[in-house]
């Protein structure tokens, strides 16, 4: 434990934790309904769902608000996941997961997913204002 002359809290951890908690909230509030409808009810044909048809799907994806929403839905939770999986590795007896390189790998991964999502959202359905 370093009780030395440090003047501020460990800022890096603080930002990671901030993203972790935001991701956690978003995952908790939003993911279940997507899984339920797009992953189960849609494929089983119980209800009509936007992503079952090309035109409805593209039309919805074209909406800038939807693009923004999807960015938040997909990218932010990955900071949560990265954080949890990194700590889980520590809990399983892998202290390397605590190190700065490991942080770079995990949170870097989340950054990659974020960029990927932006790229996908920008390159798939063309922007269309409703």
């Amino acid at each position: 434990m370093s009780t030395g002359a440090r003047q501020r809290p460990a800022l890096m951890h603080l930002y990671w934790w901030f993203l972790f908690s935001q991701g956690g909230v978003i995952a908790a509030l939003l993911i279940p309904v997507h899984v339920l409808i797009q992953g189960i009810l849609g494929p089983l044909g119980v209800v009509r769902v936007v992503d079952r048809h090309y035109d409805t799907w593209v039309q919805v994806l074209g909406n800038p608000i939807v693009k923004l929403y999807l960015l938040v839905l997909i990218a932010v939770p990955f900071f949560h996941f990265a954080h949890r999986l990194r700590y889980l590795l520590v809990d399983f007896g892998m202290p390397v997961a605590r190190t700065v390189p490991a942080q770079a790998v995990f949170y870097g991964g989340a950054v990659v997913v974020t960029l990927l999502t932006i790229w996908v959202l920008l390159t798939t359905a063309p922007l269309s204002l409703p």
Partner: protein
Amino acid sequence: MPAGWWTRKRHYFLYVVREFTALPLALWLLWLLVEIKRAGDGPARYSPHGSTAFVVFSVIVLLFALYHSVTFLSLTGVIIRVKLFDRPLPSGLISLAMFVLWAVASVVIGFVLIWFGR
């Protein structure tokens, strides 16, 4: 600390499950990303996922997702401190508010997903 410490106690095990929810949820979101990407394939080649295996996978993910939501939202209630008229709101009330928010969000999103479907 023996490596299998988390198997020794129910509570430890539940904690590990809680943290582990991250993995299935991440996989499912990656699938969603793929699903979006495929919308770029054009009308002819687009066919949405629908295999039984995928549905089974989604059911499993849903269980993890619900577990994540329930644990995360109730714990949030414990952490957040809100004061109203100088008196702290009981944590149960904050958790309840979170659950209400969850329900509202789910209804709205579900409505959009289904309403615009055809």
